């Protein structure tokens, strides 16, 4: 699975309350949730990523509440993959479970600038910054998580696994 997109960058400790503020948790339609992605920190975010983007986070990305609505809002706003130094664990699981690739890579935020063209080979665990002509190796996603991602998320995985 190869993913391509322009980088949009955030700092450390981006929590799920800023990714999707609590007042939007009543919404169910993913497209409605997407309109409020990153509302707590960058209200213009959905416009910036609507053509497809790779989100770059720092340390502890997605900390806080277990709200799955946070990664859903990101996915449906146009984010194709989230790269971070490391994730808060519930957010990481939620991403994989809804079929949004989430990859940990040390020092990633130092090596990617906002707007850089990024391509990611999920199976090989290779991230390429095409703008800066640099490549990085990440820990490949464990096989069984990869198969969940390839099916498009945990629901599809369980459906076809029956």
């Amino acid at each position, binding site marked *: 699975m190869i993913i391509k997109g322009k980088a949009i960058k955030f700092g450390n400790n981006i929590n799920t309350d*800023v990714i999707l503020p609590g007042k939007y948790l009543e919404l169910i339609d993913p497209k409605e949730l997407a309109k409020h992605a990153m509302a707590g920190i960058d209200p213009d975010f959905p416009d910036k990523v609507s053509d497809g983007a790779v989100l770059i986070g720092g340390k502890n990305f997605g900390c806080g509440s277990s709200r799955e609505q946070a990664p859903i809002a990101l996915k449906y706003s146009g984010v194709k993959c989230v790269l971070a130094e490391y994730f808060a664990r519930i957010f990481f699981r939620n991403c994989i479970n809804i079929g949004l690739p989430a990859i940990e890579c040390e020092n990633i935020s130092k090596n990617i600038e906002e707007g850089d063209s990024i391509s990611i080979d999920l199976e090989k665990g290779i991230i390429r910054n095409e703008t800066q002509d640099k490549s990085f190796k990440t820990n490949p996603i464990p096989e069984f998580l990869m198969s969940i991602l390839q099916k498009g*998320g945990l629901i599809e995985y369980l459906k076809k696994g029956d």
Partner: protein
Amino acid sequence: MNIFEKILARASGKKIVEPNEIVEANIDMAMMHDLTGPLTIDSFRKIGVKKIWDPERIVTIFDHLVPANTIRAASLHKTIREFVEEQNIKNFYDIGHGGICHQVFHERGHARPGELIVGADSHTCTYGALGAFATGIGSTEMAAVLATGKMWFKVPKEIKIEVSGKFRNLVTPKDLILYVIGEIGEGGATYMGMEFVGEAIDEMSIDGRLTICNMAVEAGAKTGIVPADNKTNEYVKERTDRPFTLVKSDTDAVFEKIVNVDASYIVPQVACPSSVDNVKPASDIETEVNQVFIGSCTNGRMEDLRLAAKILKGKKIKPGVRMIVTPASQDIYTRAMKEGLLEIFVNCGGVVTNATCGPCLGGHLGLLASGEVCLATSNRNFIGRMGSPKSEVYLASPATAAASALAGKIIDPTLQ
């Protein structure tokens, strides 16, 4: 093995497990609430399984938007009620019958030492106070648990928090956990299990243990735990008929990290905007407050309300300050009423609400306007958490909150 390894080994049918190993474990109990339930139900239907794995092991509690504040919230509640009936879920706590999920769950006997518990809410780690391995998950994962009763876990490394000494007067378990998070940082325990041990923990009440385990996730931990002792045994036995075993770390268990704290040196702590690890002594802060919130799954229990009432009794909160007090459950509400605590809160100028998550998540009451400041006994002070992205939240103990409501600014209750 340490306590986390022992519980995961038992739940996955193995003799031994090691950190970073991935195991598939059988879930003992699962919990969902009114904001994560509808998405769970939607995902469950998509999986295509007709019946949930075990109606006795699912607990459903309404607490985030109760009573419903919008037609949308009412519809979410309706969806869950229909599911509960269809699936014959017995442990259902509707509006007026329960309160905050992280109080009701164990108060009604659904948490037992040594069990593996998951909940569709990040503060599920609270039940670690009773010696269980309890952790938060998302809605889709909960749907998979409803369908299969199983979930994969990466065995966590352990961070051990050893707390010696005795707390000073008006210094509380909340001050301890804020201090610890300030020391290790917001991501300081990411993916790890946090075990609390030592003299101060042995002496600590169940209410206090629930407070410290509740906030383990604020340091990124997978769960917090206090090994079960006689106090736990007594609390749980009164509430359940199911058998359980008290689990402890072996003496030769391996820990990734040990943090030593002397409780007698801790002074009242405050987490300043906008991260939980931005912790300072309360005496260093003189910020004026517009609102004080005493409640939440962190600090809305009897011990918390008694402490706040002791400070507020016969006094008036500073004019211009709003104070909201939220007992964590219907049971606590009733007990606080009988003890005369609610009367104290109302007489000093506070508002007492029904048992709900309420202001903590900026959902349906007590929201903040731009430029306003709230001192809360809850667990998160993120940007916009309680309302406007331009409002600010400080976190502290019920003692600090009550004393600050009287002063109209954040103060150290021990210096009054």
